[in-house]
């Protein structure tokens, strides 16, 4: 289990991390979400010792993370980069050896993973000869070839075509199934909702929401109610100030309600207005939870406004 415990980091007057705390369990895919500059990249760099935190600790399986531990991690930084003139297989093998594999084992692993990524025929090409998408695949292969126990990927889906997204999703799910902890950051919230079981939402250097997506949804007091009453044009709602209308499209209305709303009463009112074709009561979408979580609350917690973190 990966534990991020009270990490804090300042760059001059800019607060990048302000006591971020969360855990990632093995075998689970964690979506690491937050607006730009919220501290995602800094957190990941702290995990890999690339940035020294001012405060707090990163633990793996209960112990502090050191270089030996990190050899069992795989990393894909946001700023992609490999050796442009190095051959693909040699490159993958080199990084696998740096993670402790013998030369032979690293070569074997490199071939196996390149094959899996559909790059077997490009093993001897120089990296710079590959297309952008294929270079991304090599980057992922580098993070995977030493069979890490923890995968940390910064924006792995950015710049991928739908095919690439499918491959990436499949690989991450497969890794999680074999017990690997996966943490990745993304701005594509619908994708995160499909791929992840858990999410961590970070804003202004602090974790503002964390847990299983389903749990967060049910914990949220917000519910969506979509009602379609034939020929009503939504007039059955008139006069009820307690309901927030999110969308109104002729007969169809989308309402924001609390989870304590009296659904029976609402349904009866709708029926009275006409034939009810749709009556759907749903938890909010992840993107709505996200917006809710990252918007500074009115009671104010004294957090300084987040600024751009130098990368």
């Amino acid at each position: 289990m990966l534990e991020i415990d009270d990490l804090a980091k300042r760059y001059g007057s800019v607060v990048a991390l302000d006591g971020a705390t969360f855990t990632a369990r093995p075998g689970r895919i964690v979506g690491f979400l937050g607006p730009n500059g919220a501290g995602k990249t800094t957190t990941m760099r702290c995990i890999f010792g690339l940035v020294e935190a001012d405060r707090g600790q990163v633990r793996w399986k209960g112990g502090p993370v050191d270089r030996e531990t990190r050899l069992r991690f795989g990393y894909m930084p946001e700023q992609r980069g490999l050796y442009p003139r190095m051959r693909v297989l040699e490159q993958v093998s080199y990084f696998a050896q740096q993670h402790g594999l013998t030369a032979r084992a690293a070569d074997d692993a490199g071939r196996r993973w390149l094959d899996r990524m559909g790059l077997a025929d490009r093993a001897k090409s120089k990296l710079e000869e590959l297309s952008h998408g294929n270079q991304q695949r090599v980057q992922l292969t580098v993070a995977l070839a030493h069979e890490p126990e923890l995968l940390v990927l910064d924006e792995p889906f950015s710049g991928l075509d739908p095919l690439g997204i499918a491959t990436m999703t499949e690989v991450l799910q497969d890794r999680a199934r074999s017990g690997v902890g996966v943490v990745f950051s993304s701005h594509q919230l619908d994708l995160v909702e499909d791929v992840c079981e858990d999410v961590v939402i970070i804003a202004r250097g602090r974790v503002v929401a964390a847990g299983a997506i389903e749990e967060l949804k049910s914990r949220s007091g917000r519910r969506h109610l979509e009602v379609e009453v034939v020929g009503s044009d939504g007039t059955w709602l008139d006069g009820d100030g307690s309901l927030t209308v999110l969308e109104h499209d002729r007969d169809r209305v989308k309402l924001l309600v609390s989870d304590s709303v009296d659904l029976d009463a609402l349904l009866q009112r709708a029926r009275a207005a006409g034939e009810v074709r749709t009556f759907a009561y749903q938890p909010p979408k992840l993107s709505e939870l996200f917006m809710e979580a990252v918007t500074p609350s009115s009671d104010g917690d004294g957090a300084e406004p987040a600024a751009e973190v130098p990368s």
Partner: protein
Amino acid sequence: MSRWRSVWLVAKREILERGRSRGFLFSVAFTTLLVIGSFVVPTLLFGDKDTKTIGVVQPAPPDLDTALTATAGRVDQKISVVPYDDAGAAQAALSEGHVDAVLAVPADLTAAGTLHFAKEPDQAITQIASGAVVSLRVQQVLTDANVDQAALTAAQQVPTVQSLDPQTEADQARFLFANIGAVLILIGIFSFGFTVLTGVIEEKQSRVVEVVLSTVRPRDLLMGKVLGIGILGLVQLLVFVVAAMAAATLTRRFTLPETTPGAILMLTIWFVLGYALYSTALGFLGALASRLEEASNASTPVTMIAMVSYFVAIFAVINDPSGIVARIATFIPASAPFVVPLRAAFDAISPVEIVISIVITVAAIWVLFTIGARVYAGAVLQTGGRMKIRDAWRSAVG
């Protein structure tokens, strides 16, 4: 995994990637050809010219050959004498370039005869031929006059040649060694030190460094880089030295002095130390730059120091290898790699001085590496513009 394996993997990658590159292979091939060529080409062009060929028209005085050879020997020239049956054959040989000059002297020495050249008269041949003919004719006149033969022979004795401070061939070879050594060290520092510099910037620019540093410590990365590129530099140096010695020996341009193995050892030691010192400095300065265009800018302080050290070595130290400038420069790490092999080549340095100088330089490399690695660690992940050393030092991961 041990740190050394990590360092070695970095070094091995540099050796394999750069060693196989066309640039490196071309530069090794080019320098080797240049070295061999500088020995072989003069031999091919001028080798035969060392021996002058004089055609002698027959009948000629019986002692002429001996007299010519003896006179030539006195002025440190080698000649070969080719007899021709008649003047016509000799003239033909001259115009075809088989001989450098044709000498026709009556067999009874009644006349001084003639010396023919194809074009411009050769000073050396003119002197040799004139000396030989005059001495033969004088000898004949004196013999006819019944002069005492013993007195005559004694009168023909030449003065004994002596030098106050004889310059031997070995001395010349030393001078050559010293100069070539200083140039090689300078070239080594510049070409391979700059490879470290650009390598660091390239890693930073291609952003691969973040992936590398997620497993490799910054100082191990810098060390591996310096080590790997240094091994390539040493290979090139050794290829150069072997090629030069092989060419020198095979073409017999000059004989290698007895001090050769010692000089090569000195050259190798100081090549390694000089390279390690300067490439470490260049490596961490490279980390402060973010684009290759800034490389020369970033490296200016180091290149200035290297150039000044080199000029101190080839002017002040060659001029006076035991002087005060030479002695001071021996104990300054920046100049020691140039100065010590030079002084050693002139036999103007004591073993104690060499050992102290090596200790100081190694200590300086260690200090520079420790500081450099920290600055490197702080700077290498930063992008966007040049970084100040102070900021890099502060932001370093301990």
